[in-house]
């Protein structure tokens, strides 16, 4: 297909690059920094997992990339989102629209509410072809059926006129995926795509995403709080906390030897069968109130590696070698701790 084209692009420019992104919410209680200097990039055929709990700014980051943030109350205070070198934040709304859904597309957590209840699924997929490609109703419907087959919906031709509520959760998410990949986007952002699904279905959806990525060579940004989901499919991970990237690493490195106390805490809080009966570990404390960010390191109040330095010095994302980064003063200590 278009693979050759894509790979022959200027290799020095990343496909999608987020640089020092700052997003604020102006509320009555004050200014809330939801995203505070986030940087990452994703290339063709690459899967970046953005990890973090609710309120860490991962969804806001995704919505900023897509340009579907509600503004106001959100304000983009700084930074850039570059698609093939072009800063999307500087584009006009029509220019932005030409990229949204066609070059960069997105799927959401709850497919039932994300699909329009009053239109058939086929209509909703076909809308992409009719509006963006000017296809006839009939041609677009044919393409919709093909897409439904591509995401493995059984009896696609028969079900094309059914409505979202007539499908199971997993099938609905497949329809969302079909809609998102309709126009062969180069980047797909999946915002917690499996959170609302059964565990067995979760695995099927992840497999499907991996399969589609294999076929098309698109870059995938997978936003999740579920470490288990990430392990198999992601290449790299960016761990977010309180609006910042705490750690960036290859998935294997991050799992084997986390370089940030937060990543470490997340990994330790996964229940393990070989420790059945023991107490479940959880990171003490709660995520910070972003209106009243603690001084120094935002994770400090919950951290067992903290020192006086953490109270005053906000750690930058240290380059710790091997393409990894950690926003912790004591990353070496954390790394060593893992090896013990």
């Amino acid at each position, binding site marked *: 297909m278009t693979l050759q084209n894509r790979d022959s692009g200027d290799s020095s420019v990343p496909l999608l690059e987020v640089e020092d992104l700052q997003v604020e919410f102006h509320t009555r209680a004050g200014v809330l920094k939801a995203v505070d200097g986030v940087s990452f990039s994703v290339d063709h055929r690459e899967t970046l997992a953005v990890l973090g709990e609710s309120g860490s700014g991962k969804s806001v980051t995704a919505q900023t990339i897509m340009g579907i943030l509600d503004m106001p109350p959100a304000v983009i205070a700084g930074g850039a989102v570059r698609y093939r070198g072009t800063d999307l934040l500087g584009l006009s709304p029509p220019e932005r629209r030409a990229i949204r859904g066609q070059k960069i597309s997105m799927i959401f957590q709850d497919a039932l509410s994300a699909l329009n209840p009053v*239109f058939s699924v086929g209509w909703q997929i076909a809308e992409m072809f009719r509006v963006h490609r000017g296809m006839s109703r009939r041609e677009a419907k044919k393409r919709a059926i093909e897409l439904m087959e591509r995401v493995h919906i059984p009896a696609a031709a028969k079900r094309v006129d059914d409505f979202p509520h007539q499908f199971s959760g997993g099938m609905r998410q497949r329809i969302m995926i079909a809609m998102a990949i309709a126009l062969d986007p180069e980047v797909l952002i999946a915002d917690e795509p499996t959170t609302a699904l059964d565990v067995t279905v979760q695995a099927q959806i992840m497999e499907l995403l991996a399969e589609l990525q294999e076929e098309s060579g698109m870059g995938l940004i997978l936003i999740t709080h579920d470490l288990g989901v990430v392990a198999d499919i992601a290449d790299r991970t960016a761990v977010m906390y309180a609006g910042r990237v705490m750690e960036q690493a290859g998935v294997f490195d991050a799992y084997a030897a986390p370089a940030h106390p937060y990543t470490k805490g997340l990994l330790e809080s996964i229940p393990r069968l070989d420790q059945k009966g023991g107490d479940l570990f959880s990171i003490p404390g709660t995520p910070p109130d972003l209106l009243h960010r603690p001084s120094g390191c935002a994770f400090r109040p919950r951290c067992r590696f903290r020192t006086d330095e953490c109270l005053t010095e906000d750690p930058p994302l240290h380059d710790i070698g091997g393409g990894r980064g950690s926003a912790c003063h004591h990353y070496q200590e954390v790394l060593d701790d893992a090896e013990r």
Partner: protein
Amino acid sequence: MGRYLLRRLLQAVPVLFGTTFLIYVVVWQLPGDPFAGRCGDRACPDAFVNAMNEQFRLDEPLLVQYGHYIANMLQGDLGLTYNMVPVTDLIAQAAPITLRLALVALAFEIVIGVVAGVLSGLRRNSFFDNLVFVSTLLALSIPTFVLGRFLQWLLGVQWGIITPSVSGEATWGELIVPGIVIATTTTAILARLARTTIAENLRADYVRTAIAKGMPPHRVIGVHLLRNSMIPIITLIGLDLGTLMVGAVVTEGIFNINGLGGLVYDHVMRLDSTVVVPVATLFVLIYILANLVVDLIYGLLDPRIRYE
């Protein structure tokens, strides 16, 4: 679908009987003698009163009267008024005028109410939104008959823009102001409802999806948002036909319009129930059918609603 329709129509039968009976009873409970003032300055001769009582069965028990009325009605005979005019003729003359008036009112409601509501829902807390809010508050707090009398005085008597009293032909142009008077309350309620519905659905996930699909704003709003917001709006319009008909009685009385409302208004004043009951029955029938149509429209608007 067919079975649903049949069931709904069968349900309408007891409703129709029940309401007509209530109307019948209420009208006959009005104080005063319908024949007392019919002979100018003098009291009517007993012979006349007795003859009238006999012809209109006023000396029989209420239930028997009602039975006769229903039996005749089912044969298409609505009887004569106390002035010996066939009721069917009166209704046939008046109905087109009221239909025109109702269409004017409906058009006003839908165009002004829905458009104002949708726009203020899309631009919440804007100047326009506040303007709509204050206007609806004002519209809701003025009773129909006050507004009718006021506009008649202001536009008709003071400024001379309209004729204070509508002519026998009741042309479309003449019915604009009375139509607005009838529609005012509902327009305000519709605007409020549309605003809330739109504002709420604007935050819905499927709207976000439509934006994420790269759909232009007119499609996001005109197709994805509006279709989902139509159900409460259509429901209100259907339910409101009742208000419309009540409004027609008062407003036709004020502007001297010879429609069904005016007919009822005149004959209630004369204690002549021969017209009041059939017209009220017609109103009930229209109301039942309109709401059936609304229920059927639901099914078209929202595939999750199915009739079995």
